[in-house]
């Protein structure tokens, strides 16, 4: 069996300590990316020139005595973030020649911290889907079983980590697009609080619900990368001025007596027994660590599903209108109806959703007074095969869009932070994900739970058979 790929912390320590050069690390990551590309299609573009140039620059900066928290750490970004000198394709032929003049804010921050970009990652076209299928760049495949979906829309972002190509990637999440592929590919994925990480330089799907966040193998790495990414950006008017906590320093703070909320209604009603069993076992671990399990009740979930649709479709249609007009045939046939759909929602429905958001925000604040984190399955089942349209769940088959997104999208609508961590495997050796949800701005609590859980378990250290 292969060794577990190194973490961000391990790579940065090696490069800072001159055990390896950033250039050597970059070359190795590029080799892995190129080797896996034909089979898994994790990338839309591998960028060896950028990687080698940035790696040499990191080696130079270290020699000059700079302190770089991500020194030489290779990473890749979902191909909706701008990287100067590469097209931001958005996973679509319609944007294939969109050449940005600048890097996205998150890319700038990572470069400043010493990270090395090795490529741009495949995604569901225009981030508008959850299977990772892509007619223009080829379907990204699940490293645990290439016949199955990796999840999406940040499909390549999760697959690249599961394949051991790099220890962190960037994704975006409007209904579950970081957490859901993380669950299906066995990685960690954070959707931060809305406003915590800048969206500037990223293509929008739905302005009021888009979130940018990292995918990693470990919680400690997620804390480190989030610390680099977070903080005010004047170019994104939704970006918060709140101080960024020292997430890595808080990983080992006690979770004893923190309250873990569990809501059986909605989140456990139609869940595969193997998934439910893994979540129950994880809850027992949290109890062993001293946390207290309590009943939780989040109101308005059915209304949230409707409100999410009343927002995402009009906002997506609004953004895409000139692109649809200019290049209608460059969108895949399964994406075009989604982009037209927003035309048929009334302004009254859209505003009702925004008004409902105010009521729901108030009621959720009350519901969260009784808990510190909410624990749910990230998805009710493991990865389905390509082409499936329903998931077989207790109670009967459920449309895939409802099965895969109903447990994640409420937190996009409300802006609450949510983290998916691997918590087990099915009998078919497919990863299972657990979702931790916190109050706004409490990412550090989520990292703390995830990190201490990972000290007690080895799910995150397992490798797909395609890699091992």
């Amino acid at each position, binding site marked *: 069996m292969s060794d577990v790929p190194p973490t961000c912390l391990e790579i940065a320590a090696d490069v800072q300590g001159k055990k390896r050069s950033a250039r050597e690390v970059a070359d190795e990551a590029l080799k892995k990316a190129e080797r896996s590309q034909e089979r898994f299609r994790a990338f839309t573009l591998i960028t060896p020139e950028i990687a080698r140039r940035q790696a040499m620059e990191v080696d130079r900066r270290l020699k000059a005595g700079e302190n770089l928290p991500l020194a030489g750490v290779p990473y890749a970004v979902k191909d909706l973030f701008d990287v100067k000198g590469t097209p931001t394709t958005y996973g679509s032929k319609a944007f294939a020649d969109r050449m940005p003049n600048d890097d996205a804010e998150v890319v700038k921050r990572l470069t400043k911290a010493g990270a090395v970009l090795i490529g741009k990652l495949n995604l569901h076209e225009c981030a508008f889907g959850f299977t990772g299928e892509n007619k223009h760049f080829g379907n990204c495949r699940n490293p645990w079983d290439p016949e199955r979906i990796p999840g999406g829309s940040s499909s390549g972002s999760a697959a690249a980590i599961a394949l051991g190509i790099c220890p962190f990637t960037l994704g975006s999440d409007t209904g579950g697009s970081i957490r859901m592929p993380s669950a299906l590919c066995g990685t960690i994925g954070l959707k931060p609080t809305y406003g915590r990480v800048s969206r500037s330089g990223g293509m929008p799907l739905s302005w009021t619900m888009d979130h940018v966040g990292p995918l990693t193998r470990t919680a400690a790495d997620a804390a480190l990368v989030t610390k680099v990414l977070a903080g005010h950006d004047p170019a994104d008017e939704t970006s918060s001025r709140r101080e960024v906590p020292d997430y890595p320093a808080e990983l080992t703070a006690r979770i004893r007596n923190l309250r873990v909320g569990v809501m059986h209604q909605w989140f456990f009603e139609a869940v595969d027994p193997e998934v439910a069993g893994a979540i129950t076992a994880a809850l027992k671990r949290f109890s062993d660590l001293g946390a207290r399990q309590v009943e939780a009740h989040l109101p308005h979930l059915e209304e949230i599903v409707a409100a999410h649709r009343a927002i995402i479709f009009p906002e997506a249609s609004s953004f895409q209108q000139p692109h649809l007009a200019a290049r*209608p045939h460059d969108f895949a046939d399964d994406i075009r109806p989604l982009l037209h759909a927003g*035309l048929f929602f009334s302004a009254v429905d859209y505003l009702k959703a925004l008004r409902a958001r*105010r009521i729901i925000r108030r009621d959720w604040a009350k519901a969260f007074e009784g808990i510190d984190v909410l624990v749910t399955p990230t998805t009710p089942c493991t990865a389905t095969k390509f082409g499936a349209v329903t998931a077989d769940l207790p109670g009967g088959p459920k449309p895939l869009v409802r099965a895969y997104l109903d447990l994640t999208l409420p937190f996009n609508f409300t802006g609450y932070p949510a983290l998916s961590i691997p918590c087990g495997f099915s009998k078919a050796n497919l990863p299972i994900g657990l979702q931790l949800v916190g109050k706004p701005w409490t990412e550090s609590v989520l990292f703390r739970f995830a990190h201490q859980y990972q000290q007690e378990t080895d799910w995150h250290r397992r490798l797909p058979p395609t890699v091992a």
Partner: protein
Amino acid sequence: MPDPRRLDPQTVHKLATDYSGQPLADQHATAAAAFVTTLLADMQPLRQMSVGDAEPATTYSAAEGQP
């Protein structure tokens, strides 16, 4: 009698063409009509929700302060 909740492909065709400036192929209009009909049916819980006199929540304040 046609179901009033059902969107017909001609309506989709017209609106989508107006919107994009390009004619929409029949099969695409039909696909969009079926899809949108399902989506609009999902709106009922939102339409029935009482929101009193609440104003629309702006995105920034939605999570910035304690609600």
